[in-house]
């Protein structure tokens, strides 16, 4: 054991390593977070890969047959071609395939489609991601904004009616899955009242994609129902969390101290209750973005909205597994990155965490 008198660090010119060391320890909080995220991403890739290993072998034969009659080559030549194109060889040993897959990953190939040549996970992501991001983030921030305000309102004002209404709202929207609400909205507003379109993301005939108002108008018009169904459910969740957090904060001593200092009710609500109650909810933003992103599959298939979710469900149904693997991997990466960003931004909002 080193002898117990403390080592006295004399202040000689600190070398390069000490500067690096000081920098590292100062931001070790961030490096730790980044490290964990990378580890999680790597493990997710491994897990996804091994799930996909269970793909039934007949995919390659199907593709080989297609190639054979398309290019008039012998079956086993087509089989070889199919294997290389698909980057998947059922009878190859697992680790070789895994390293080839990782190699492909680093080169950015997330997965080639065998149904349509030239279509890969990357191309699909380029075209589909903006749409999913659009409705997910709009729905998320809309519901977060409405939910936290209502939650804060009913927590600070103890009147019965508002509490009862919001509790029943939370109970109902909590019990109906968002995709069923989407179905109901489609039936009411789509088929019967015909106020809103129920399919696709914009009116392809009358509008040309580009940064012009008719296009944006049409996009918003078509995205109304999907966003509405997400928002209805998510708002209930945010009201619940905000009310719980705000009631917790109201019990704190600094609220009583603020009241004793003769601060106006509105100031106390804004700078004391709201600010402190919102902090724990920020970390939840990352998690709920993940769940929205995950849930997109079903929502988009109901509205036939061309997002990543719809791609995944279509590709799964007609067994285009290589692309599916790429898309799911990408979704997981998105969720991890969003959570990482929220974690890194959190100290800027909450001073208590800042100096760690």
């Amino acid at each position, binding site marked *: 054991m080193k002898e117990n008198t403390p080592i006295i660090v004399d202040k000689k010119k600190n070398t390069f390593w000490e500067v690096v060391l000081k920098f590292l320890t100062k931001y070790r909080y961030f490096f730790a977070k980044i490290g964990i995220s990378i580890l*999680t991403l790597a493990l*997710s890739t491994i897990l*996804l890969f091994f799930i996909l290993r*269970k793909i039934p072998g007949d995919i390659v034969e199907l593709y080989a047959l297609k190639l054979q009659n398309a290019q008039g080559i012998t079956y086993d030549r087509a089989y070889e071609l199919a294997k290389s194109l698909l980057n998947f060889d059922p009878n190859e040993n697992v680790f070789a395939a895994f390293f080839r897959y990782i190699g492909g990953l680093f080169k950015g190939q997330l997965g080639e489609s065998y149904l349509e040549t030239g279509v890969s996970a990357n191309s699909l992501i380029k075209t589909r991601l903006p749409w999913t991001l659009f409705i997910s983030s709009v729905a998320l921030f809309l519901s977060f904004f409405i939910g936290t305000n209502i939650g804060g309102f009913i927590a600070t004002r103890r009147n019965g009616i508002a509490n009862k209404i919001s509790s029943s709202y939370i109970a109902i929207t909590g019990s109906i*899955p968002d995709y069923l609400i989407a179905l109901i909205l489609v039936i009411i507003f789509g*088929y019967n009242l015909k106020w809103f379109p129920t399919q696709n993301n914009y009116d392809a005939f009358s509008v040309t994609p580009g940064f012009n108002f008719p296009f944006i108008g049409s996009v918003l018009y078509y995205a109304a129902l999907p966003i509405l169904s997400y928002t209805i459910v998510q708002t209930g969740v945010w009201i619940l969390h905000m009310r719980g957090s705000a009631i917790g904060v109201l019990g704190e001593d600094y609220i009583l101290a603020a009241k004793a200092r003769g601060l106006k009710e509105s100031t106390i609500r804004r700078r004391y209750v709201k600010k402190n109650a919102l902090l724990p909810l920020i970390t939840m933003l990352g998690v709920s973005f993940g769940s929205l992103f995950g849930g997109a599959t079903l929502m988009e298939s109901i509205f036939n909205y061309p997002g990543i979710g719809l791609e995944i*469900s279509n590709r799964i149904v007609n067994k285009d597994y290589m692309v599916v693997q790429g898309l799911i991997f990408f*979704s997981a990466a998105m969720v991890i990155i969003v*959570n990482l960003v929220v974690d890194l931004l959190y100290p800027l909002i909450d001073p208590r965490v800042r100096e760690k």
Partner: protein
Amino acid sequence: MNKEKFSDFLSTLKIFFKNLGHNLLNFLKKIFSSKKTIIGFVLIMVFVFIGIFGPLIFPYDQNTDVANKYLLPSTEHFFGTDWLGRDVFRQVIAGTSSVLEIAFFTAIFTVTIGTILGIISGYVGGVVDKIIMSITNIFLSIPSFPVYLLLAALITLESSVSLALIISLWSWAGLCRSIRVQVMSIKERDYIQICKVMHMSTFHIIFREIMPNVFSYIAVNFVVAMRNAIMASVGIMLVGLAAYDPTNWGAIINAARMKGLVNYKNILIMIYPLVFIIIFQISTLLLSNGLDETLNPRLKVK
């Protein structure tokens, strides 16, 4: 075994059960003190009753009878008939058991995996904790629904148990993490430290000191797991997978949707299973909120 030892053994057994009974009694008295719990529990029991005895009272025959398809609800067909003339009411009744099966099996699998791993990583800590935590991180970051679809497509589903297994594979992570946090906080409490000073066995510490404290949390999450199971299973069926049981409520909704919801008759057929799902979900919500309020002292409304 001599007489005295035997009677002593009997008395400890009697005490044990009396104790167990006593604990169970006041536990039941405690949780049924809240209105929410009672309503929620009664509703679920109604569903269980329908699930078991429904098909006996209203047997459902699948053969089609196209002549009287799309009949309006009448005394003979309470919910009317669908596009193949099959009685919708009996379909929904027959589907109840498969829905309940999914709910209960998922809840059981999720809670067992989540609790065991949660306690191990919470109590043992160190490297084991780090490993289990990184595993849960994966399951929490990969979006659950696309994976359900993938697994449902890869493995041909032929029964509720397999569907339940798939759903619970991806929902145990959240529970494991929160139980780990609870166990870690309890482990630091004074009454656990005192057990170490008094040389109590690890078995005693985990099962007699920590488990009872975590039990209320597990009970609430059992019901929450049931809710998530329904959400996921209906979702999977709406995408056309796991169609092993056409009478499952999700399957009926999907079938009606496939027939085209422009025709209002299909909408009518879809409404009934939808309402059943909503009622079931509200009952699980009431039960979980009620349990949470009674068992969780922190939430006690003064």
